[in-house]
């Protein structure tokens, strides 16, 4: 009898989750189906791979940062990647940020400190467009959440600059990409084999760089992901135990009514 109720309860829970989860499909994708990837941070127990994040950071710094800002990431956040305070200060010192006004009323530039956010490559959107044939390279801080398919999509996009299929036209100034909605993207393939040199010796193929930078951007989008999942496991275990206790209490109290 208890098993029957338990099974019913489980069925209800399962159906509820099945109803809630596919809500993802409410959005219109508009693009080609994106192949699913295996990420270290997927799933209930997912965590970031620090080595992967550092390589991805290297790719961002050397390749993407020339055009794409990362406005919501501060140098001090790089501690998540495994850098200590001194290393972060050294990284920050390579960059200049605008500050001021000084006592003369003028704006000035100074080297960055850990509390600064990543300096943008262009001072404003218009300058960014002017430097990129009218196209605006979007900020990357939230790119994994801002696209259907998330990190899978970013990986597919970056490694998807395939040969133009026969018969397909590509407009002037645009490039063919197998996964970009509409298949024509204003950004030329940013990655090339051995385009960067990894400090840990990993071979920097296009796919490797694409994977690493996608993982890095997943971190940039949600640096608190690991804390969220760790807490989630604890909370769910507690709630399941607590609900179980409530259920037994309920049956005990209702015993004289049934």
């Amino acid at each position, binding site marked *: 009898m208890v098993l029957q109720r338990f099974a019913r309860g489980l069925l209800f829970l399962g159906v509820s989750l099945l109803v809630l989860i596919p809500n*993802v499909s409410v*959005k219109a994708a508009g693009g080609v189906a994106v192949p699913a990837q295996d990420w270290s941070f997927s799933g209930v127990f997912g965590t970031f791979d620090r080595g992967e994040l550092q390589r991805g950071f290297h790719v961002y710094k050397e390749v993407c940062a020339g055009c794409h800002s990362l406005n919501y990431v501060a140098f001090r956040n790089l501690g998540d990647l495994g850098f200590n305070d001194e290393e972060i200060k050294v990284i920050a010192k390579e960059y200049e940020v605008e500050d001021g006004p000084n006592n003369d009323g003028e704006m000035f530039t100074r080297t960055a400190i850990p509390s600064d956010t990543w300096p943008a490559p262009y001072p404003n959107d218009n300058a960014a467009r002017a430097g990129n044939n009218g196209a605006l390279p979007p900020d990357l801080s939230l790119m994994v959440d801002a696209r259907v398919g998330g990190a899978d999509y970013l990986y597919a996009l970056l490694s998807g600059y395939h040969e133009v299929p026969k018969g397909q036209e590509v407009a002037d100034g645009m490039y063919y990409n197998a996964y970009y909605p509409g298949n024509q993207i204003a950004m030329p393939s940013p990655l090339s084999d051995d385009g960067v040199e990894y400090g840990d010796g990993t071979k920097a193929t296009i796919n490797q760089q694409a994977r690493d930078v996608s993982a890095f951007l997943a971190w940039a989008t949600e640096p608190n992901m690991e804390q969220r999942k760790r807490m989630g496991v604890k909370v769910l275990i507690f709630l399941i135990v607590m609900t179980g206790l409530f259920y037994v209490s309920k049956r005990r109290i209702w015993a004289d009514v049934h």
Partner: protein
Amino acid sequence: MSEPKFNNSLVRWIDHRLPVFTFMHHEMHEYPTPKNLNYWWNFGSLAGIVLVIMIMSGIVLAMHYTAHVDHAFQSVERIMRDVNYGWLVRYIHANGASFFFIVVYIHIFRGLYYGSYKAPRELLWMLGVVILILMMATAFMGYVLPWGQMSFWGATVITNLFSAIPLVGESIVTLLWGGFSVDNPTLNRFYALHYLLPFVIVGVVVLHIVALHRFGSNNPLGIDVRGNQDTISFHPYYTVKDAFGLGVFLILLSAVVFFLPNSMGHPDNYIPANPMVTPAHIVPEWYFLPFYAILRAIPDKLFGVLAMFAAIGVLFILPWLDRSPVRSATFRPIYKVMFWVFLFDCVALTWLGAKPAEGIYVLLSRLFTAYYFFHFLILLPALSIFETPRSLPKSIGRPVLDGGGGAMAAAPAATRERS
């Protein structure tokens, strides 16, 4: 009912001057609740608890949010990244809104199935519809606050609807916007109202519960309580049952908050609002989709708007559309089937609301919209006249022993008032 004796002298001192303890004892220990309520009756208290969760998480977010077009998006990101546990409070608030509507929609469908809107509970039902409307206004304005692409364009589309009103439409829209388009004045006033309305909802919920306690809860059999043998005290029976239901609810909410926090949202809202670029598909949050489908189904702008509002408005007059004296669908064989058809219709409209307005989706939206109004305006009144209900049990206490014995009089028996 005799006054309860409190052992604690401080409690007695307070209660003598402000009878809160007597009141609570009355409501919890003495308030007679039908003994046969099933789990579909958990959703009312659940809705109340979710309201409290939304208010608490909302107040915390308000400590860190900035309602200005230049700072709103960034202030939300600061909450997600820098504020201690900010990500947790934000995800609870955003997903809590979705769960609030899930709980309330189930609560409403429970009412539809068991005839909880029928005499003498018409006003209770109408207060509930008022709460639903307030919730929709609150949720709509809340979604604008992060100032993402969907925030901005959803606000633009929905506020533009009011221009359909003849003569004064354009002026009303300008009044709502505080300018010539959705911009900073709009965002600021939406913030003020989004903070205010939940407390208005609390007030209406109080009225809703007062109206409920006037005649007590309906029950799955839909027949009136006849005496003490049909009821049990709310505490501890339903307090513990509600606690269990709350536990199950929190498990589902936590599963989403901690592991699928963006599954019910839209990626475009992680892009800062850009008045120069319209997203490919503007979609409201899922709980507005059926009404969005109805809006788009009617080709005329004004009638589309009227149909959308009428879809909620028709709920107000439901007690007078469905005049069957039998409350519970358990004893209404035709209505029971039509209830499930109606539920399917609502789910279909939800699904269609997310689809682009082209091709077969247009035809389907019109079909299901027509059926929605057919259900309320034609089917229910017809059933009131033509449906032959099954015979009702004599009482709640002994439905099995006396089942089928002598059909009860069609008119609802004299409702037992609480003294």
